[in-house]
């Protein structure tokens, strides 16, 4: 996937000239760090003393029953939901709980939502254009021009997500699966340090799943990836370390094999025959 890396780095001639868009400090350990996080909604505890660390460059799978709090966890990381207590750090410098969504996003945390959300009135191309990692302040955005290399990049991604033919169609007309792909494409455009991917393969065929798996594995290393998924086949194919969430806290953590043989996990999640 060096082609992909090349793409993402095309405007970085020298490493030290790279924009200070993501000054994440990972010298002292993990890229993401959640400690004792609690959230409740009207008395219902959705996240219960959650502790989680993601290392730089790691690919982590998170599984767990419906309602375990996986999406809520992502909401917390991206600033959508404020936890009642606990701390959330991005690298060792950024306390995410003091920041709002755009700040967190510009730090380099990107997210694909469980329910595909794209800008329906904009074309597929424009959706990708907006996601592109550029200066997102007002005046730069107002005066931004579409450089040929940007265009190439977008076309590259379009190719990758198989939406080339729908390039100039409004995203609103896409089918469910196509929207999923578009969201993945937007995530790629964003070049985040940390990708949070909520159920990427729902509604995909086996082969598409394979491609997605390849894509995610290739990203890992350079970027950190957190994947939430219920499809065990898919998880198995990418998993290095798996965390199982249950009732808002970590139930088990380990390799896929360790986890899938855990009695508790089988009981609450996998079912006997999985």
């Amino acid at each position: 996937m060096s082609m992909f890396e090349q793409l993402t780095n095309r405007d970085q001639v020298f490493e030290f000239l790279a924009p200070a868009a993501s000054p994440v400090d990972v010298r002292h350990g993990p890229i993401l760090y959640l400690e004792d996080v609690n959230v409740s909604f009207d008395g219902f505890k959705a996240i219960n003393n959650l502790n989680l660390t993601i290392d730089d460059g790691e690919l982590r799978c998170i599984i767990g029953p419906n309602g375990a709090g996986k999406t809520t966890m992502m909401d917390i990381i991206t600033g959508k939901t404020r936890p009642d207590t606990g701390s959330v750090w991005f690298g060792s410098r950024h306390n995410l709980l003091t920041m709002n969504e755009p700040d967190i996003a510009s730090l380099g945390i990107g997210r694909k939502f469980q329910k595909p959300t794209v800008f329906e009135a904009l074309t597929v191309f424009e959706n990708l254009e907006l996601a592109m990692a550029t200066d997102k302040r007002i005046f730069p955005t107002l005066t931004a021009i579409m450089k040929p290399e940007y265009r190439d990049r977008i076309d590259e991604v379009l190719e990758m997500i198989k939406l080339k033919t729908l390039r100039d169609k409004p995203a609103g007309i896409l089918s469910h699966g196509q929207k999923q792909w578009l969201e993945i494409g937007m995530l790629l455009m964003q070049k985040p340090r940390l990708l949070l991917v909520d159920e990427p393969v729902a509604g995909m065929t086996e082969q598409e799943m394979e491609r997605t798996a390849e894509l995610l594995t290739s990203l890992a290393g350079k970027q950190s990836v957190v994947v939430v998924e219920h499809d065990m086949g898919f998880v198995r194919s990418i998993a290095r370390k798996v965390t199982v969430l249950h009732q808002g806290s970590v139930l088990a953590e380990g390799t896929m094999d360790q986890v899938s043989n855990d009695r508790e996990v089988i009981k609450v999640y996998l079912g006997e025959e999985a």
Partner: protein
Amino acid sequence: MWLTRPLREKSTQIFLGVLFSALIVVTFLHLFMPQDSALHVSAYTVTLLGKYLCYALLAVAVDLVWGYLGILSLGHGAFFALGGYAMGMYLMRQIGDRGVYGDPVLPDFMVFLNWDTLPWYWQGFDMAWFAFIMVLLAPGLLALVFGFLAFRSRVTGVYLSIITQALTFALMLAFFRNEMGFGGNNGLTDFRDILGFNLRSDATRLGLFIATGIALAIGYLICRGIVTSKLGRVSVACRDAEARTRFLGYRVERVQLFVFVVSAMLAGVAGALYVPQVGIINPSEFSPLFSIEIVVWVALGGRATLYGAVIGAILVNYAKTVFTGVMPDAWLFALGALFVLVTVFLPKGIAGLLQKRKKAKDDDTATGQEATA
């Protein structure tokens, strides 16, 4: 440059072409056709057209925030009126000692309310440059403060609409108060000159009409420039999925604030050009119903097209002029029916009708391509 980019668009070229031809034709017919000729355009008509153009600019400003940013402002009349008052204050000061009481400094209404000095906020309005800056600044500042508060707290949708309405309503009541020092219900009127030109002369009127036309052209270009830029696409993104836009790293509230302030300033300019042409500014311009009406023009013309707003504003106001003259007792029926019929039969307004036609001819031109440097 973002401002010149729209000049390469066909639709903008057509729009500007039509606008400037209209300006030239009207000017020609007014100046060179004999008074009794059927083709002569009277000063009355020139001023009337000038008023329509002011409304058109105002409608463009509303369409910018409503059509592209999804902010249904039911209080844009407030910005229009503030621009109007700033201009009105300048015009009042130009009256000088020609007022009924002959006071060289105080406007008549202050004399008769027994004020002995000019309030501080009237200072400087005797200077045109200052007044013209205020035309932009007063509405801009109000929009900035109001927008800052509202967007920061993520007030959206109908909640935002209703507080814009509350804003203009509160201002209306405030300006009604004589203590405010803006002439109360009577407002500001009886203007004489602007920049040394007699407001009661036909030439000045023509000049104002042309100035309004040019202002509309510039305003349209600014709006078009914004909406065809990447910022315009971000606006649309905010409109359709505000939260999602934030997750991409855009500060939605700043985008909203920027566009809102630009729109308010354009509305202010429209108000400033309106006042010398109609000869009065009074708090009724702040009335919530007027602001709603502006939205109605935009909807009727076709939302999120800009030129639709222009068409809507001109058409509705032309219809009003015609109907109130032709059938004074029943014109509201006609206007009401117009609104109903357009909504039911032309879902995308009049612009939608034009687009449909156009679509049949040349298929799509993607906005992404227009952005090419």
